[in-house]
């Protein structure tokens, strides 16, 4: 049962990673990051089913942090959009050395 759960979460996580790597749109990348967090949350839940409730405590933590991160991240993306009229990361390279 644990193995199937972990396989599912791993699949979800990899989809998230690949999405971050291949997409150029900041919003999509952002959603992929959320997907990765959700995958991790699922892993915690799965583990808590077998090893006690500590995992569920972590899930609450992760959700809190990801909510805060979502708020900040979206605010940044909106600010960038207002400036550049785009959220394509190929055009956003101000930190180029």
């Amino acid at each position, binding site marked *: 049962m644990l193995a199937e759960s972990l396989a599912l979460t791993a699949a979800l996580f990899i989809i998230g990673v690949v999405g971050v*790597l291949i997409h*150029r749109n900041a919003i999509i990348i952002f959603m992929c990051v959320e997907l990765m967090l959700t995958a991790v949350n699922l892993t915690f839940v799965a583990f808590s089913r077998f090893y006690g409730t500590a995992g569920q405590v972590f899930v609450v933590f992760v959700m809190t942090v990801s909510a805060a991160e979502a708020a900040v991240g979206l605010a940044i993306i909106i600010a960038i959009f207002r400036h550049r009229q785009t959220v394509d*990361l*190929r055009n*956003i390279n*101000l930190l*180029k*050395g």
Partner: protein
Amino acid sequence: MFLQTAVSAAAVAHPLSGTIAEWVWLLPVLPLAGFVINGLLSLNSAHFGAADPNISDHHPPEGGAEALASSHAEEAEEAGDDHHAVRRHRWAGVVSVVGPGVLILSFLLALGIWQAMATTHPEAPFIQRYFSWMPVGDLQIDAALQLDQLSMVMILVVTGVGALIHVFSVGYMRDDPGYPRYFSYLNLFVFFMLMLVLGANYPVLFVGWEGVGLCSYLLIGFWFNDKVNADAGKKAFILNRIGDFGFLVAMFMLFANIGVLDFIGVSAKAGDLVAGSPLITAICLFMFLGCTGKSAQIPLYVWLPDAMAGPTPVSALIHAATMVTAGVYLIARSSFLFSLSPVASLTVAVVGAVTAIFAATIGLKQWDIKKVLAYSTISQLGYMFVGVGVGAYVSGMFHLVTHSFFKALLFLGSGSVIHAMHAAYHQTHSAEDAQDMRNMGGLKQYLPITFVLMWIATLAISGIPLLSGFFSKDEILASVFARAHGSTLASANWLGIPGGTLLYVIYGTGLAAAFVTAIYMTRLMLYTFHGPVRTGTQEEQYLHEPPWIMTSTLVILGILTVFGGWLNLPEVITDVVPLGPRDLLTHWLDPVVGPATARITAGAAQVPAATEQALIGVAVVIAVAGIVFAIGRLKPDRVPRKADAIPEEGFERVVANKYYVDEALDRTIVIPTYAVSRNFLWRIVDNGLIDGLFVNGSAALARSLGWVGSRLQTGNVGIYAWVLVVGVLAMLGAFTLR
């Protein structure tokens, strides 16, 4: 540490503890205080009191260069001639009290300590420890002062003659704009000189040794606006550094092999070293290298004649009476080492003898009055080294003391001559050389006191009986003869030459040098004071005796020059003529240098009194012959003025040019050093290696590394994400596959 001193005091209870000798620290501190005060006043150099009529009122119009000079300054100011205006320093009055005052106080304290020492006759040195200076593992060096009979002699000379010269300087330097600076340097010099003679170990002595070198440098270049003077200072400093290198190496070797550096410790453990071993010879020779630098002996003597660029009282104090005798003091102080090494001792004597005759011959053809005295000083220092070299440490010190009297008198006398000449040329705005004897002549009618006193000093240095120089010089020659007769030196072997033969040669050289000394000194007197006046008809009216403050010091030195010999009357003379108590200095110094002298004379037969008296006779005849020869040969009325002088020919020209030693050193050392410095050290090492490779090279390396790093920063988030993922995978792989 407090406890320690208390314990040692209770255990030994030195006869001097609890007496005025406890105040020995005040001896150097007084001049140091003078240095601080005068130094602070000299910082206020922007303000000069305009030639103050109140000052000149103190002196009768005919009595003073000051009066003359300051009235002249008023004229000059009226004429708007800044170049010749006398700019007396605002604080000159305070400095005139503080500068000589601290020295006089020091001298009085020294007299008190001497009195305490003379009544208690301590056999062991009186050591005062103040704090631990360098406690590094085995190396324990205290800041400690040592008072014994040897340092007492030096203290009295330094503070006594020093005080007189300070007083003389008040008159000589008064109208110099750098007056407080001059006195601050002079006081600092006395401080360091007292540290040198009072130090209880080699490092403290070395601090004084370096300090007097510094002050010598500062005072030679006192008038540093002239590049020549500044260069002379540098030359003295650099040549002294060469000597100091030797001294340092000697100290390192002492520490490496004995493990202590204080005089008591070294003298106690010196016996552990094998007498005559290469090690102790090397230590002594390195130490002697330091002495050749400080005391201007061959090969490092060339700085002393150039050092005459400084003010004349400086030449008297530093370059005749005290600092240059530090080398003689060092050898007398280290007698426990030198007496163990006949080879080193003979080297000292040989170098001294060669220097004595070499410098004396150069003195024959010099025209600058101070240059003659400079070469004379080198020559007399050579005599002292002959004395300490043959293990006659008392004779060497005796000559040091008497020489400080008559040479200080000669230098100050020449200072009074130069003072008069300078004032005369100053009045007529002439650019003639005030130190050249060809511009003097016939000065006896204008400077009668100086004339008489300088003749006394001349007779003393020549060795005319009953004057101080006669006794001391004769004692050195007699000691050389006695050592040749029988001693550890005579049985030693120096570079394949038997020591006995060598000592007879040194004795002969000493006699020859005495002959030459009598000639050049008489020549100096003849050309300066006798014959027609060559100064110039216009200038003659301005020639005058210096103010009383200068002449009075000359008179005191004159008295010392006459009676200085009473310090150590030899037995062979008191037996014939009962002049007074004999061998005072020998008995006085016996606790310090007695054992070393005994080691060198070990098992030698006494030279018969008749022989000694005959030797004295020979020396006197030679001195008189020198004077008579000079008077007969030299015609002061036929000397051309400097402007009309014709160059010498042949050997005379070689001598007049000081055997071209300076030129030879220039060609062989100075110019190659410059060339190497410019072409290799500067162009290749400094510009190429240090600037190019290290400084600019490291900058270029950082810049290129930065360029590489900056290429990684694309600013593209996608690439960062890729790098992140690859990194995480690599880490995971590394952990799982481990």
